[in-house]
């Protein structure tokens, strides 16, 4: 291969690398745009999926936006995460730990990444995970019983 051909090949490879890297970076850096109602609906869906597994309804819901920082440092008044906070009454059949176990199995089956999984007492524990669509899910035993459920959306940009 001539020197010119080598230079051309290296240049081509470099261009391909730059283009691919740019695509990856651009895809990764873009904070997805979502309306408040759509983001709230997604938070609620995740919470309801948890409640369905436990077999008890969600109580005391509170959903609202909070400031957040995107993966590449995106911030601003319109870049927000939506946070849902709920309670679930103690299960009428089975223990709290059995409910956490059921949830763990479901999340693992769905391909979620478990980020915390602890048993802290005779019937108390914490289970948190990141869902495949980037939501942070957290269920922990409350006082004196039952559960606290927290759902945090990824950073979204308001339209």
């Amino acid at each position, binding site marked *: 291969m001539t020197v010119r051909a080598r230079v051309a090949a290296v240049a081509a490879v470099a261009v391909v690398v730059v283009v691919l890297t740019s695509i990856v970076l651009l895809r990764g850096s873009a904070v997805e745009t979502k309306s408040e109602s759509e983001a709230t609906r997604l938070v609620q869906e995740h919470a309801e999926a948890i409640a369905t597994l436990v077999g008890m309804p969600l109580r005391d819901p509170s959903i609202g936006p*909070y400031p957040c920082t995107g993966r590449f440092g995106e911030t601003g008044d319109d870049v927000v*995460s939506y*946070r849902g*906070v709920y*309670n679930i009454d103690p299960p009428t059949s089975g223990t709290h730990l059995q409910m956490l176990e059921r949830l763990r199995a479901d999340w693992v089956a769905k391909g979620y990444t478990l980020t915390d999984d602890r048993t*802290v007492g005779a019937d108390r524990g914490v289970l948190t995970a990141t869902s495949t669509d980037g939501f*942070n899910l957290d269920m922990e035993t*409350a*006082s004196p019983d039952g559960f606290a459920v927290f759902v*945090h959306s990824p950073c979204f940009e308001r339209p």
Partner: protein
Amino acid sequence: MTLTLRALAETSTADFTSAAEAWARLAVGLDNGFEKYVAAAGELPYVWPTGTEAEERSGRLRAEASNAHEPCQRISRALRTHADTVRSLQNMLADIRADAAREGLDIDMSTGVVSAAAGTVDDASDVRRVEARIRNYAGQLTEVLERAYALDRETSAELDASVPALGSGFGGTTGPAITEADLATQSGRTPAQVHDWWESLTRDQQDQAMRDFPQTVGWLDGVPAIDRDKANRTALQHEKEDLIERLNAGGSWDANSDLNEQLQRVYKIEDTLKGLGESGFLLGFDTTAYDGHGKVVIAINNPDTARHTGVWVPGLSTTLWGSMDDNMLRMKSLNESADALTRDRQGDVSTVYWLGYDAPDLDNVSVLQEDRSKAGRDPYLGFVQGLRATHEGEPGHLVAMGHSYGTTVVGEAAKTGGLPVDDIVVAGSPGMHVAGAGDLMADPRHVWAGASGTDPVAEAGNARPWSGIAAGIAFGAAGPIVLAGAEYGLDELHGIAPTDASFGGNNWVADTDGHTSYWDAGSESLSNQARILAGQYDLVTLNSGERPENVR
């Protein structure tokens, strides 16, 4: 009536709590109606100068309406205490039942008889051991029932005492007007003494003090939160009207600029309270303090009725106007997270934003000095002691909280031995002016510190890689030595960081970046602070330390 263990276990504390809240609402409603009546009846002598009898009757009605307020509040407090104590006895009973079950013993919830389950006693030595255990559990159960009976009597007595006397109603007389001198006298007394004095006044007297001296009453530690809030809102309204009037009257550009800035601070407080709705309590404000940096104390939910209250001190460069939104968002986030962990009662967590001191500035070296933490010590002590005095029902779980330089204020207050809190929680602390957790709390397991691995305030070494590179560029090979020197300097200034292993407290896991993200939604940093505030210590993730027993 015979009280059984089953009746105790099945008593709904929520019913008593709801009743307590209803009586409290009635007291507030009476108070509001009373205010309207006073405003309307104030015109009576002018429109009907000869109606002396009407005026006299109006005075008696005014006094009786005023005097009805306190009994309603007493009933509310008695019912809340009843609910709290029943809950506590239920928890004790549940613990006893669980312990007994683990030892193979049954408890008859109707008769209170403790017996060994079939097949659990093998030989004669077992019989003696089991009999001893049965006697022990029977003794514990008797004590629980005796406390329940005593509570029943106390609540009944309090309710009876609050019912008006036949014929005389709630009484048609009230005390003398409260003067500025009366209030000045209170400033030298403890919050508990101030509380006793305030409770000794008739509602008419309290209302008159709140009307005539709103800002003084609003800052008075020992006055209940609901009254401080009322007084401060009155003072805020007066200040706004006064500022608008002065601005409308004209004046120099400089003078108007200052007045306008002061008005913006008033609006900031108003907007914040509007955003909080009924959950907001204005417990103090001063829009002119510290060259306009200002002071403000705002609670989310009533700290006098909350079971868990955190009083949070902000740090470097905090001002009333510039930092309100971010800090209130932190308080809201913390409040929601902790409240969800106490499932049985909504709104039983109060988070207080306490900017009652002159936080250090960015444009001078005040952050490297102790003056402002020492100056903040007594106001913080007074405020927290006031919350202890005004809390209704069982003593609440009270938590001192701080961030950055604010943790030095908490440290100064705690090391006096007079800060009446159950836990201390700090984030990103440069040091707390003490050598160890034992200097802050008798039990160091109740001192909780967290710091991000990238927070340079908690540890100068954490400033890497950026400041490490910068130090390397600036000082070459001496960069690491400069960083170590900076850390030594900070330790010299504010003491060893409470996250240091040698400090002796608990070091909670902080997964957030830098110095200002400890309240980010979804973070372990926020969860851990909320778990401590809710007294659910077993849920806290620790780098080091030892968790105490949960708050029940």
